[in-house]
């Protein structure tokens, strides 16, 4: 980990940071951000109304110096005064309204279009006030707005060009090659940032990425393979930072197709997953054993009373036999797009043969995986990034009507609980509701979640001030604002 | 009185066999050459001539090892020289003229650079003086435009010129010993005479001692003072030229001498009907536009051939002999004229000919090496036409193959061998047998003996002669070797540059009336007479070099005009030559037949 030894922030230094993917699709438009590179870039250039700064995941004010809501439907945000964009113009409510409403325009191609559908109305309320009215109660709006997609751009900029209020100014941007930013001298938060210059590149090949770190060509990288940690830690100049996160790769069994729709089949599959093996072999223990539901033990609202599903081949075989599926041949679609899925599929195949299921691994290319394979076949793998709230993960992936209801299951009770929890003001009650929902998913849903995967960043030990934020690599992609360089 | 310029004794050259033992390819050869004389090494192919000649330079091919009691050239003991000393004498004091100048010249460097290279690498002169000297030698070798010929590339000069240029390269350092390895074998007879002559005078002028390698006794007779006859790497006979040529003591030398004078074969009793009629053929290569090929070769060539008869086609290289054969076989569709077989007009393109028509005309290709598929066994090669034309399969085919092998006098065991495992003579027999397997009416033989030793070639000729008499096959016999054709054929067709300048029956051809070109050809064949070359050299004189081949009206003139020693100014270069005909002879010339008889032509000269 980062700051064991006490060190105080100091100004200066430039670093090069590598993520695992970049392409010509790299963008300066926060709404379109799709990869770690984009998120990191956007957080350097822009600010959001709110932000999440630490592992507590509590949303804090950012461009909004305060926010409030009585009914969790209508929200009022009061903006900071005197915040200036890089081009010198002042931030006003206009900009915020523009930035939020863009997401509802299909032509923009926002990744948050479905979330933004909740915005019934976004209005400016004076020069420095913004009022958002939602279609239904949502206590998590401040958390939602802390995501990179909702970062604020200048009003009228249909194709944002990096002109934000952020801690860094854009110096160079070559899609698929690199982004260079330099310190914004007039940043509205005094004393920040510390680094003079950040160069953001992508090294898709993991071995190359780690080699680049070890040869001093980069100072920080994400997506380190658990198998490489030994190499990095062996060198006293480098360290890894593990961020426990709710990232998971799940095996999807479509409920609207056979035989995956058969509850016995689902049960059998959940019973034949050797979770310790996956944790140990695939992730070198940089993972947390999961229990077929998406809330990780270290997250709020985690339900510790659910019994842990463990490997039980006899029971699995019994379920297979009961379903009359012994000897059935099933392809499992996997791609590197879903981290670890190919190896998981191999494990499934190995154990499947022990319970009478004949799985065939069908590795397909990563590109086109989400549009052509994911959720399209009876058995595919999905991959779900950490979400800041339980509501988000449940409503995006488990609600019957959700676009990404991966297994296509339908559970009215679950749907009802979801709405209820979203508007619930009482924390204890809310916890109960989420606990109940976890049980339903664990028992009934057609997804098997073997483990939660830790995020692994590798960094030069001279880079200080890093600490894990479970939302993503690089302190939830926001390291640039906090980190400093100590020679 | 003086010690000989070159002295060799106890020369042994051996090569390592795969099993490690050594095999001698030259054994115990000794000779001596007095200064300024020419020694000829003669013998059949593979007898070790080249190997011996090269050992004079301390050089051996394919890792052969040279050992000798003594190899002395002038004051140099070649056998005692160290490996790094040898290059200093090669090309400087001993030089070499290879058999094929076309191969020995580097195709991608200008001639001059190569000719003066010996001077430059031995630092005998600077580039300027070297070039001046080269031009001097070019002039003395009677090369055309000596100042500029050096700027050309090897492919831009004729074979004869190239051979002379190589002589220039060899002589430029004024060597003590010149080695000539069959320097005229690859040349036409007419060119051979020129080259022989220049070589002889050049060597004489330089005063160098020479070793002349050849397998042709008649050629050797013209240049050599002494002769060593080799057989299988051993000296068979050695002596002065007169002695060997006039009173040979070994049987081998006698057989060589005999082969140089082929016996005249009696004409077959040909039947009356023409089996093959070729009339007014016009043909060439490239795309045919308006009945005229892009590269015209043959113009208006025709003849008739009776069953069982033989027509000889002669002419120098490039005169269109093979082209004629290809036209008859249909391999090259003629642009004009027609070929009739038994009175039926054959389609020009073989693709349009019926299988039966194809069967009845068979061609025996010049080069047996490339005409036999190396991937097939003799049996396969011979049985394919049997199956293809006669539907013979299995035992019947095998029996017929055996029969064919008997006919061509080869052992039956040969069937399972591939052509690569046969000698040159054997290959040519198989080539012939394949044609016979089709049971043809007409056999086209394209220089079937040119690549063979005289002795072996003579045997093949005997075979063909016997076959045509036995089976009544009509033969078109193509050759550039006029003595063979003269002895062998009932009719002669003389081609010059694609035109038939003369068509004669054997009797008339042997007579005195000849086209000037035919006369040139006949006269160019060397005689055993040692003074032949000296006399012959006076004859070679062209009347109108560089004359145009078309007159003002655009009519084609006699193509031989630029080289014709008997050309009539004002007639030959103005009017197309008329065809002079008599019984059994047709000649394309302005002179009357009477004028062309040898007595009369002596006057014309």
């Amino acid at each position: 980990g980062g700051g064991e030894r006490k060190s105080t922030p100091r100004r200066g230094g430039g670093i090069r940071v590598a993520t695992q993917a970049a392409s010509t699709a790299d963008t300066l438009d926060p709404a379109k951000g799709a990869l770690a590179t984009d998120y990191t870039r956007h957080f350097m250039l822009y600010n959001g109304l709110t932000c999440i700064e630490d592992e507590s995941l509590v949303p804090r004010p950012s461009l909004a110096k305060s926010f409030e809501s009585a009914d969790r439907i209508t929200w009022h945000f009061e903006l900071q005064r005197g915040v200036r964009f890089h081009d010198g113009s002042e931030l006003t409510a206009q900009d915020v309204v523009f930035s939020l409403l863009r997401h509802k325009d299909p032509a923009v191609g926002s990744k948050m279009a479905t979330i933004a559908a909740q915005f019934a109305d976004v209005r400016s309320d004076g020069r420095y006030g913004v009022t958002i009215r939602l279609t239904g109660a949502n206590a998590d709006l401040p958390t939602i707005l802390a995501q990179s997609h909702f970062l604020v751009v200048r009003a009228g900029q249909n194709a944002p060009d990096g002109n934000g209020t952020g801690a860094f100014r854009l110096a160079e941007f070559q899609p698929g090659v690199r982004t260079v930013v330099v310190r914004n001298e007039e940043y509205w938060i005094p004393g920040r940032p510390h680094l003079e210059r950040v160069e953001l590149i992508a090294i898709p090949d993991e071995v190359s990425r780690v080699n680049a770190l070890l040869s001093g060509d980069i100072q920080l990288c994400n997506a380190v393979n658990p198998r490489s940690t030994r190499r990095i830690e062996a060198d006293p100049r480098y360290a890894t930072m593990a961020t426990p996160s709710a990232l998971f790769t799940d095996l999807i069994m479509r409920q609207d197709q056979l035989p995956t729709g058969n509850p016995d089949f689902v049960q059998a599959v959940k019973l034949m997953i050797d979770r310790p093996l996956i944790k140990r072999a695939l992730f070198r223990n940089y993972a947390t054993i999961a229990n077929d539901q998406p809330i990780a033990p270290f997250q709020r609202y985690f339900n510790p009373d659910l019994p842990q599903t463990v490997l039980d081949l006899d029971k699995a075989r019994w379920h297979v036999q009961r379903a009359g599926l012994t000897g059935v041949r099933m392809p499992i679609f996997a791609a590197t797009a879903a981290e670890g899925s190919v190896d998981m599929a191999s494990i499934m195949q190995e154990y499947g043969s022990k319970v009478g299921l004949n799985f065939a691994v069908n590795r397909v290319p990563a590109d086109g995986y989400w549009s052509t394979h994911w959720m399209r076949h009876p058995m595919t793998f999905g991959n779900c990034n950490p979400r800041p709230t339980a509501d988000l993960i449940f409503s995006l992936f488990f609600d019957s009507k959700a676009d990404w209801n991966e297994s296509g299951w339908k559970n009215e009770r679950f749907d009802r609980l979801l709405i209820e929890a979203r508007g619930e003001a009482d924390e204890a009650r809310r916890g109960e509701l989420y606990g109940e929902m976890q049980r339903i998913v664990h028992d009934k849903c057609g997804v098997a979640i073997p483990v939660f995967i830790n995020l692994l960043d590798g960094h030069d030990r001279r880079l200080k001030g890093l600490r894990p934020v479970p939302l993503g690599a690089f302190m939830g992609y926001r390291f640039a604002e906090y980190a400093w360089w100590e020679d | 009185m003086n010690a000989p310029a070159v002295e060799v004794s106890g020369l042994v050259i051996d090569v390592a066999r795969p099993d490690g033992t050594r095999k001698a390819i030259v054994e115990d050869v000794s000779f001596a050459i007095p200064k300024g004389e020419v020694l000829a090494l003669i013998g059949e192919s593979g007898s070790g001539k080249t190997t011996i000649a090269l050992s004079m330079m301390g050089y051996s091919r394919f890792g052969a090892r040279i050992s000798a009691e003594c190899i002395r050239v002038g004051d140099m003991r070649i056998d005692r020289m160290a490996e790094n000393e040898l290059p200093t004498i090669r090309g400087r004091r001993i030089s070499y003229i290879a058999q094929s100048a076309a191969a020995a010249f580097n195709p991608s460097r200008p001639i001059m650079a190569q000719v003066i290279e010996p001077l430059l690498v031995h630092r005998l002169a600077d580039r300027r003086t070297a070039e001046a000297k080269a031009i001097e030698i070019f002039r003395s070798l009677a090369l055309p435009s000596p100042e500029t010929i050096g700027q050309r590339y090897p492919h831009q000069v004729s074979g004869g010129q190239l051979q002379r240029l190589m002589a220039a390269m060899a002589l430029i350092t004024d060597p003590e010993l010149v080695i000539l390895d069959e320097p005229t074998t690859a040349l036409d007879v007419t060119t051979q005479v020129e080259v022989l002559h220049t070589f002889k005078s050049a060597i004489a002028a330089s005063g160098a001692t020479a070793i002349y390698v050849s397998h042709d006794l008649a050629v050797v007779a013209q240049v050599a003072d002494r002769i060593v006859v080799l057989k299988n790497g051993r000296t068979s006979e050695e002596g002065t030229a007169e002695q060997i040529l006039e009173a040979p003591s070994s049987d081998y030398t006698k057989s060589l001498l005999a082969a140089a004078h082929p016996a005249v074969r009696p004409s077959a009793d040909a039947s009356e009907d023409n089996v093959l009629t070729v009339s007014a053929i016009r043909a060439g290569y490239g795309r045919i536009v308006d009945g005229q090929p892009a590269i015209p070769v043959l113009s208006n060539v025709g003849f008739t051939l009776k069953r069982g008869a033989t027509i000889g086609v002669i002419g120098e290289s490039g005169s269109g002999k093979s082209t004629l054969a290809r036209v008859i076989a249909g391999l090259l569709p003629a642009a004009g004229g027609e070929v009739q077989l038994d009175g039926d007009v054959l389609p020009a393109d073989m693709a349009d000919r019926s299988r039966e028509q194809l069967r009845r005309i068979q061609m025996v290709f010049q080069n047996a090496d490339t005409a036999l598929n190396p991937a097939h066994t003799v049996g396969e090669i011979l049985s394919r036409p049997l199956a293809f034309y006669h539907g013979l399969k299995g035992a019947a085919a095998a029996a017929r193959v055996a029969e064919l092998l008997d006919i061509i006098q080869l052992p039956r065991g040969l069937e399972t061998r591939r052509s690569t495992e046969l000698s040159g003579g054997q290959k040519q027999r198989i080539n012939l047998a394949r044609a016979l397997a089709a049971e043809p009416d007409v056999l086209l033989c394209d220089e079937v003996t040119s690549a063979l030793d005289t002795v072996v070639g003579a045997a093949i000729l005997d075979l063909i002669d016997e076959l045509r008499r036995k089976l009544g096959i009509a033969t078109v016999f193509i050759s550039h070797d006029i003595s063979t054709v003269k002895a062998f054929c009932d009719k002669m067709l003389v081609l010059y540059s694609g035109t038939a300048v003369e068509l004669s029956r054997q009797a008339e051809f042997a007579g005195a009336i000849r086209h000037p070109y035919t006369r040139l050809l006949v006269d160019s064949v060397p005689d055993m007479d040692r003074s032949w070359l000296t006399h012959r050299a006076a004859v070679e004189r062209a009347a109108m070099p560089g004359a145009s081949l078309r007159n003002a009206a655009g009519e084609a003139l006699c193509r031989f005009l630029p080289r014709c020693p008997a050309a009539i100014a004002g007639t030959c270069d103005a009017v197309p030559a008329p065809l002079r005909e008599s019984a059994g002879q047709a000649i394309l010339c302005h002179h009357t037949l009477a004028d062309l008889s040898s007595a009369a032509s002596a006057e014309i000269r």
Partner: protein
Amino acid sequence: MSGKLTSFLRGLPVSGRIGLALVVFWLVVALVGPWLAPYSVGAFVDQDVFSGISSQFWLGSDYLGRDVLSRVLWGSRYTVFLALGAAMIAVCIGTSFALLAAIRGGWTDEVISRAMDTFISIPSKIFALVLVAAFGSSLSLLLVIAAATYVPGNFRIARALAMNLVALDFVQVARARGEGSVHIALREVLPNMIHPLLADTGLRFVFVVLLLSGLSFLGLGVQPPHADLGSLVRENISGITEGALAIIVPALAIATLTVGANLLIDALKPGGKA
């Protein structure tokens, strides 16, 4: 037959014999290897990963704790047979087109040559990526890609050979006899190309082995848990600094296979003995 074999062996130089031995060794491994494999190819048998030689795991274990020996035995089967199959297909197709182009000449030749240029100029790995993206990864597709990649190369060589042969007299003899194109192609021309073609097949074989390993780098290849030798190297590459056997063994396998094939080819070439 056996006489021929011994004389063939005797004719080979030492390097050729080494090559032959290596090639035969890998062919045998590819044929019988999977039956000798101590574990199933996907079995997670070792608690540790990248472990060294032990009595239990003769060649150690891989990045997931699977038995390297078993995986290499299986992997060589994929590599050898895929490469062999692809090389043969490429040579068959390339040579057929070459014969057609050489014998027909003219427009046929021009069209085929242009088409081949088209294929040769598209980078093969990218072409493979596109095809795999379009049709999904399968053994047969891999075979097709590898074959298609090397068809044009073989075509160029075979065409040059055939052009030389077609000009030779024995082909003219066959034409003058009235033989059809098929006979000329198959009986007259082809047998004389066999030797250089065999050498070329060998060379293509080597190229395909390397192409497959390149494709495995791009994530295209045999479906897991199976893996060809290249994929084995690739998937274990993170063990490279530890000198893991899991990476050395398959890399060595590729090297010996390709070097062996090359040595054999060189020895077969006429003049290679010199």
